[in-house]
């Protein structure tokens, strides 16, 4: 057994590049999804009913589709639209689009729970548009939504593992390669499990510090 872990360690380059891919993929898609979420959320609550319904349809749709299936559809579907994507890009696209829906839902909920007066005060004091958003609206919103966004981040990390099916060289794929080459399934996958656990603990620590910031200001 110890020898098995030694074998896994000898492949640490592969493992680390898998971990790097997982991390980069997760961070990029989370950031992009959050950005798209910020664009979608106002539309979600727009006065024009049909716009809001379109977004509602998109969000509910993504909630009802398994991510793995969605990744397959993006990977196989885009070529038929004439767009050739490699597995990395289509994996990133799938992860981003899918989670943009969840981000929109989270932001909508957090926005609904925000008190209106401080924002009105901001307007009364002369803040407008970008400044208002950046300095008055955004900080309390992010502080309040911190834990939920953190949870979604963890979801993204786990969803990224599904992309092994389209041969994207992330962590699970790396562990799979190591186990199929050296026949050390336990050591390879346990290592992957502990690396995922570590990644999620890092996210939870981050959420914890945001929560502490929020608590001091409550």
């Amino acid at each position: 057994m110890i020898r098995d872990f030694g074998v896994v360690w000898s492949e640490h380059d592969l493992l680390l590049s898998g971990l790097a891919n997982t991390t980069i993929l997760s961070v990029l898609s989370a950031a992009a999804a959050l950005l798209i979420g910020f664009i979608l959320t106002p539309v979600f609550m727009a006065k024009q009913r049909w716009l809001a319904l379109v977004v509602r349809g998109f969000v509910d749709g993504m909630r009802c589709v398994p991510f793995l299936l969605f990744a397959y559809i993006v990977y196989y579907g885009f070529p038929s639209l004439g767009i050739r994507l490699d597995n990395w890009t289509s994996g990133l696209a799938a992860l981003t689009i899918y989670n943009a829906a969840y981000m929109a839902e989270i932001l909508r909920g957090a926005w609904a729970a925000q008190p209106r007066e401080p924002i009105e005060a901001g307007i009364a004091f002369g803040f407008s548009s970008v400044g208002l958003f950046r300095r008055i609206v955004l900080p309390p919103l992010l502080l309040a939504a911190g834990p939920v966004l953190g949870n979604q981040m963890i979801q993204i990390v786990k969803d990224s593992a599904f992309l092994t099916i389209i041969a994207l060289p992330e962590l699970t794929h790396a562990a799979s390669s190591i186990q199929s080459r050296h026949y050390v399934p336990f050591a390879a996958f346990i290592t992957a499990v502990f690396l995922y656990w570590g990644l999620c603990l890092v996210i939870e620590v981050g959420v914890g510090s945001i929560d502490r910031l929020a608590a001091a200001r409550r």
Partner: protein
Amino acid sequence: MSGADVLAILQGAVVTVTLSLVGILIGLPIGLALAVLRWADVPVVARVVAVYVSILRATPLVTLLLLLFFALPNIGIAIGPVSAAILALVMNTAAFNCEVWRAALMNFPRDQYEAAQSVGMTATLRFRRIVLPQIVYVSLPGLVNEMSLLIKVTPVLAVVGVVDITRAAVRIGAETYDPLPPFLIAVALYAPIVFALVSVQRWIERRQRIAEAAA
């Protein structure tokens, strides 16, 4: 895509639904048992459960499934794709259910529990007659949410060869060199099931909100 292909996907749906049900039905009581072990603070065991839940909630289902499917035979336990699939689903969903049950237990009103103690109810009676009926009610939305999440991860079972909706769709796509239509049919099968569960959850939450407002 022929009629036979559609039939194949429908047969996959039967597998998906069956395995999901098995996972849900076994995962619910195990999740409750784990939550109770933590709530009762059984020495050593409570800490083990905490660590187990933390790891399982951080582990992607596909990684867990591959681990079970390949590693168990390696240490002498023969396991087929269906058993590995059920085991992975149960281990995963039990960990998430544990947190839902635990939230309800942690928020259980202390004085009701003490009232049960004060009339001489033993621990078993206290749990069975006073605690359990109420935490089931409180945990319902979270548990139904977890059920819908479970259905959404079942496609991963295709990775070890279980012929569920996804694997059937993949196979047909590979045979016909036209992957998109079977995938869309697959979506058309998953979506209503998940949507039904999400709707049930929203209905439960609405009913509970109304009950609370009326009290």
